Structures are given as structure tokens and as C-alpha cells.
């Protein structure tokens, strides 16, 4: 197991190195650039040249990459140029990341917490009204563009009904204390329970929007997987043993049915980043998704580099965790 983890870590380093080069080249091939973003209408050739020189963008690209790589090795990704000028890009990432994690965790909890039980129920009532209805509902959920769904949620629950806040992570005037960056946790730790509650209220709509697609996927995978497992010989064996339905459900059906679901959850968790770009934007949530989009628009190279690389690392780590989880529940992998 340990060797497996180490091997994956080494792979991850490889991925990150390759990706850093790709991201670097990608950024440099984007039309426009930092200089335009900073100067706007004031971009006269002289100011441009001065700024390029000041930023080191006048050097040949391989020199730039070499400089970047050298700095990156020391964890120095440079400063943000536009999103939060002067702030170290890595600090900026660390500051925004908790928002995305918080949102993603709630979303994935929603998706898993609803998807698995409903998927199981649909499979048990195969071909029933409930089954067909929920399948169609999940397909509809998938056909709705996420940002539109996010808007609909916001429109009805925040704007029309005033039940929940429109945007942001916490009400502005609250003056809540932030220590970990996870606002709910902060509120609990500092005993500012109103602040925690406020943060939870801000989380509801975006996490619902973000959870839709993972929910639909997890629901369908669970359903398909349970259907398949229900047909397995060992379930029949278990039935032939006269076991109680509780034992059959838990030990024989769900345990096996969850194997593909775990993989799916992992992949969906990685995919949440994409959903987060759209959702965070609609809700002005101030997480990584929002930051990436903003950094892209304003050609903030440092921030983009850090965010994309860290997102990739997160993706790999999540997948590693999923593989470990998979090994824990599937002895065939563990004892190979």
C-alpha cells in the first residue's frame, strides 16, 4: 500500500512538472496579456515596454520558464498582478481555496447523501413509477446548464422569496472573525454562532446548484450498480442462506454496489472544480473557481499558474484518496 502511494506521489510530481510547462506555454499563447490588463486605455507603447521590462516579460520565453520553474521550486509563484495585486499568488490561492473546499464538501455530501439512498431505492423498485420518475428527473437535471440552474435557485429563493442570501459567503456587516478560512468552522471555533449560521445560509444555494450533476451521476451509477449486483449470484446465495434482508442489503448488495460508486464520487469531486467556476461566479462565492475565471479575464499569470497547478494536485490527491478508499472496501485490490 505504502509503495502504491509513493508510486502515485512520484507520478503526481511528473504530472505537475508536465502540467506546469503546459500551463506556462498556454498562458503565453493566450492573446493579449498582463500588460494590457494592467494598463487598459493607458497602454501606450512606452508604458507597455516599461511594464514588460519591469515584469520580465521582455525576456525570451525559455528564460521566463526557467525563472518560473526556479521560483516555483521554492514555492514562490510570484505575486498577483490584477486579482489582488501584490499578494503572493500562493497566499491568494490558500486564502480562496477554503471557500471552494467548503462549497465542494457540502455539495458532495448532498450528492452522496441523496444519490446513494435514492439510487438504491430506485433499483429496488426497478421499473416502478418512482424508478422511472427519478431516472427522468436525473436526466433533466443533467440537461440543465449549471449556471442557469444556479440562477434559477438564486432568483426564486433569494431574490423573490428572500429566504436566503443572494451572494457571497457571509453578510458584509457581520464583522465575523476568520481564522481558518472555513467560515462555518470559524464561526463554531470562535463561538460566533450567528456568523456560522450566516455562512451556512450562504452555502445552501450554491451547494445545491453545484451538487446537481454529481447527484445525478451518483444516483444513476448507484442505481445501475445495485441493479447489477442484485442479479449477482452471491446475492442469490445470500438469499438462499435465508439471511435477513438487512444483512443482505448491507453486506452483500450495498458493499459491492458501492465499489463503482466510490470511483465515481472521486471523479465527480475532481469535476466539481469545473462546476465551481460556474456556480461561484453566479453566487460571487470567492473561491478558486471564481478566482480562476477572474484571473483569466485579467490575465493574471501568477494566480492562474498557481490555481491550475494546485487544482491538478488536488485532483490527483483526491483520486489517490479514492483509490485508497477503493482498496479499503475492495479486498481484491487490497490483497492483490
Amino acid at each position, binding site marked *: 500500500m505504502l509503495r502504491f502511494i509513493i508510486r502515485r506521489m512520484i507520478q503526481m510530481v511528473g504530472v505537475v512538472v508536465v502540467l506546469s510547462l503546459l500551463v506556462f506555454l498556454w498562458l503565453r499563447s493566450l492573446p493579449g496579456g498582463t500588460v494590457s490588463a494592467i494598463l487598459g486605455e493607458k497602454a501606450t507603447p512606452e508604458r507597455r515596454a516599461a511594464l514588460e521590462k*519591469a515584469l520580465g516579460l521582455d525576456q525570451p520565453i525559455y528564460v521566463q520558464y526557467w525563472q518560473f520553474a526556479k521560483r516555483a521550486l521554492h514555492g514562490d509563484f510570484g505575486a498577483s498582478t490584477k486579482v489582488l495585486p501584490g499578494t503572493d499568488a500562493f497566499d491568494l490561492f490558500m486564502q480562496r481555496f477554503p471557500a471552494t473546499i467548503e462549497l465542494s464538501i457540502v455539495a458532495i455530501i448532498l450528492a452522496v447523501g441523496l444519490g446513494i439512498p435514492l439510487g438504491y431505492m430506485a433499483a429496488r423498485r426497478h421499473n416502478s413509477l418512482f424508478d422511472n420518475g427519478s431516472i427522468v428527473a436525473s436526466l433533466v437535471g443533467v440537461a440543465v446548464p449549471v449556471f442557469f440552474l444556479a440562477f434559477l435557485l438564486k432568483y426564486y429563493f433569494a431574490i423573490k422569496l428572500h429566504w436566503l442570501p443572494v451572494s457571497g459567503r457571509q453578510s458584509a456587516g457581520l464583522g465575523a472573525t476568520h481564522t481558518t478560512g472555513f467560515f462555518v468552522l470559524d464561526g463554531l471555533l470562535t463561538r460566533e454562532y450567528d456568523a456560522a449560521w450566516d455562512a451556512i445560509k450562504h452555502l445552501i444555494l450554491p451547494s445545491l446548484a453545484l451538487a446537481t450533476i454529481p447527484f445525478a451521476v451518483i444516483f444513476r451509477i448507484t442505481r445501475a450498480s445495485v441493479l447489477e449486483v442484485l442479479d449477482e449470484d452471491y446475492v442469490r446465495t445470500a438469499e438462499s442462506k435465508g439471511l435477513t434482508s438487512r444483512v443482505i442489503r448491507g453486506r452483500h448488495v450495498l458493499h459491492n454496489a458501492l465499489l463503482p460508486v466510490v470511483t465515481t464520487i472521486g471523479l465527480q469531486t475532481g469535476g466539481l472544480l469545473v462546476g465551481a467556476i460556474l456556480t461561484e461566479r453566479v453566487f460571487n462565492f470567492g473561491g478558486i473557481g471564481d478566482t480562476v475565471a477572474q484571473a483569466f479575464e485579467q490575465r493574471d499569470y*501568477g494566480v492562474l499558474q498557481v490555481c491550475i497547478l494546485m487544482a491538478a494536485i488536488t485532483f490527483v490527491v483526491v483520486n489517490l484518496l479514492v483509490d485508497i478508499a477503493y482498496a479499503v472496501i475492495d479486498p481484491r485490490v487490497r490483497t492483490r
Partner: protein
Amino acid sequence: MKFARKAAPAAVAALALTLTACAQSDRDTGGDTAKSGGDVKDTITFGAAGAPELFDPFYATDGETFRVTRQMMEGLVGIKAGTAEIEPELAKSWEPSADGKTWTFKLRDDVKFWDGEPFNGEAVCYNMERMFDQNEVAAGGPAGYWADVMGAFKSDAANALYQSCTAPDPTTAVIKISRSTSKFPTALSLDSFSMQSPKALKEGDANNVTKQGEGFGYPAYSKNPVGTGPYKLDKYDEANKTVTLVRNDDYWGEKAKTAKIVFKIIPDESTRRQELEAGSIDGYDLPNPADWKGLKEAGNDVLVRPAFNILYLGLNPEKNPKLKDLKVRQALYYALNRDQMVKTQLPEGATVATQFMPDTVSGYNKDLKPYAYDPDKAKSLLKEAGAEGMTLTFAYPSAVSRPYMPDPQKIYEALRGDLEAVGIKVNVVTKPWNGGYLDTVDNGGFDAWLLGWTGDYDSPDNFIGTFFANLKANDFHTSATSYGAQLSKDLQAADAIVDENERSAAYQKLNQQIMEEYLPGLAISHSPPALVVSKKVKGLVASPLTAEEFSTVTVTK
């Protein structure tokens, strides 16, 4: 897994320590709320479109930052509320020498920085010298306004407008500049040139801008600025994207009416709108003109600022030689139905431009009439020039909204239709604002393009000087024309005239020449940017320079 098992308890312990250590609530215990009772709120919450870059205005370049620092900092010269005109602020009065090169400022004697440092002549000179003496990195980028106005820094002192500053006594500062210019002293009203505490600047190593990767690193001072204004910086909660300012109770002038301002950063415009309607913010800047009606119907006040900008259609005679012919350029101008465009695509209060500057700027020529919409004349002019059916690569930016063009595509569509109506073949080109549009304009890649300018301060040089004075490099490529050199020379000469009336007359004449004889580009329109506040907000005066002050604002409950 062995390693992980051993490490885990340690990590947990460390985490627990960290959490307990930082889990102290540092919240105010609500004293403020009690004090300002009555029916007035103690907080203004304003929706900002972007995060402030930093809090040392000298290195800032964008409006979002200045909106925040303006509440905290003051300059020698201020701006009269609701206008672009200058008025005394930290300086009570000023006097130029006859040659316009020496400026004597009489200073207020009752001003202190928040940190208790006195504001006096020495402080002024310390500030001026500090701005002048920038390292290479800062000079290349962040100190942009100084570079714009003063031309150069200490390392290149010979080319700098600024020469020296002396403080003969505590209430006097004498600033010497290398030549007479229309910018002076108006440019000193720029937020970038605000006065900051010398002690704090020193202690915060304020000039230590460094290159950090592909960005700039700013010294500690930029997060803890010290000024003289009615508000002080309380907290910048980067994670929750809010900036909180609190009232400076020792302010020399009239104290701020509301104890706290919270700037909530909401980049998405429609979200700002929704927040306003939900009551979680009290106002925001630059509402989409399409929203004005809805906002007003919902009982909000849309404060329309006098337009202090210009939208123009740039032309590049180098890229498309047909454009070298004045007749062709005039034909294009006559072809445009700007009245209709302004009515249908620009917000209320927008006007058709007659010249490259708004009417609030001195040197504006009232006698100029707009080129009328006359497609027939356009066609005949094109025929005369032998340019019938000419092809024009005409570009507009996507993914952007500027005060002078809220929706570039719409404006473009209207203008394009007009051009096509007179037989011009238009190659439609669009690029994202930051994604190549500005670069291509600078590289002369389009025949024609939409762009504009918002004035920084009330000076003709800030408009037509910016556009055409630099012969070697300007977007209009006037160097490729017969009049370019002359125009550049005349503009510099006009700028140097000391007497205001004389100078104004010279600029008026230049405006006329530009529009009638040269026509380097087509001035299109002036469009008023607005800001919107809920009806509970009182006392906010819209500024053409978008330089609103919040110290006079109250918010009822």
C-alpha cells in the same frame, strides 16, 4: 503507511493547537452600534466591482482602489463635489510664478495624520520626493500616474516635469517643475498624489516595490496606509472580500456622518443589482444602463454623473491607405447616424461628441457643431475620393464594459450598419478586451476600432494631449499623416501657456482644427456613467471623475 501513522497524531496535535490559538473572536463587541442610535444606520455598505489593488494610492491605477483610498487620503488640491473643478484641500491656496514653473502652496495648519504626525511643508516635500524617487520596478509599472503626469523619475530627472520641493516654513511648500503645463496644479488632485504620513511611509518601507515572479510585490505599508482623511482603514477581509473603513474621529474638517463604510466586492454586475434589491448593500457603481429603469422603479436613486469621457472611432491610415484621404474620413463621419445610436444604445444623458473632449474641460470649443448624419454626402465624398465600396476592418472589444461604452457590441452594430449603408464593406473583427484587443490597437492591427478615454483630471492635455501629442507613438498613427507633426507641436505649445484664458483659447482653436482640418479619428459620444444607491442613502454627490466622497452620506434604517 507506517510513516503516516506516526505522523498523524503529531499533525492532529499541531492542528488542534493552531485552531485553539487562533480561535479567538476578534469581533467588536458592538459599542459602535449602541452609540449611533436613532433612525440612521452606522454603516454604509457599498458594492464594489473589484478588489482594491492595495491601499497606498500612489501605486494604484484603478477606480476601485481609488474609491477606497479617497475616503482615507487627501491631496494638496481637492475636487469640488459634483464637478471636475479643483478646490483647496490640504493646501489653502497656491500661486504660480510668472513662468509657471514654481508653485507655492499655502498649507492648512490644523491637519494631523492619523498616527499623530503633523501635516506641514516638510511632510509635503517628503511625499513629493518619495513619489519622485522610485526604483526601476515601481517606475516601470505601479507608479503609473506619476509616469503619466511627471514623465520620469529621479533616475531620469532631466526628463521629469517635477524638479524639486522645498518647505521654507511649516505652512508653505514650494514645488518647482521644469516647464509650464496645463496639468499643474490640477494633476495634484489625483488620488495617487495624496499626502501620507512620512513616519508611516518610512516605517512601512513604502517605496520598496519588488518584482515577484510576473507580478509586483508591495511593502507592508501598502496594507497599513496612514493619511489625513475622514475615514481610516479598519480591516480588509480578503476571504470574505470586504473592506471596512471606520470614521477618523480626529478629522480636521467636518467629521464623517456615518461611522463605518463596508465595501463589499461583487464582480458580477447583475449580482450587485440583486444584492441591492435584497437590501444587503446600499449602493453600487456603474449599473448597467439597461437596469436603470428597473432600479428607479424599485425606488432607488440612479445618480447620473456628468460625462467626463469620450468614445471615439479610431482610424489607422497606415493600415488602410484609403484613410489617408480626409474626404474618406469625413465620409465615414457623415455616414454615422450618431443621434440614433446615442438614443438607442447609450444611457440617458449621453451626448453626441463634437470634439475629443467633454464640455466640462477647459479648452472645449462650444462653437463646433457635430458632423450631421448625411449618407448622401458620405457617398459623394467617397466617390470623390475614389473609395466607393472600400473595405474596412473595423473592430470592437468583447468581454468588457467601459463607462463610455456600456455595451461595445451594440454600439458597434449600430455604427457598422451605418457604414454598410453607404457602401463600405466592413470586416467584422472582435477580440476580448484583455485578450488581444488593446494589443492589436497598439500594434496598429485594425483599420478602424472603438475605444475611448475617461479623464483623470480637468485638463485638455489629459484628453487631446494624450491622444495626439506624442507623434512617435499614438494609436491614430498621426506620424503617417501630413498634419501629425504640426498638431503634436501645437499641442505641446498650448500646454505650456501659463495664462489660463490664453491657453483655453489655444486649445479651442486646436479642437476646431482637429475636427475640421485633421480628423485623425471620429469622436463619437460622451456617455454618463451612473451609480445607484437605495433611497435610504442621502448626501451622496455624484462626481464626473467618479470621485465620490462618502463622508457626507447617511443611511436611514
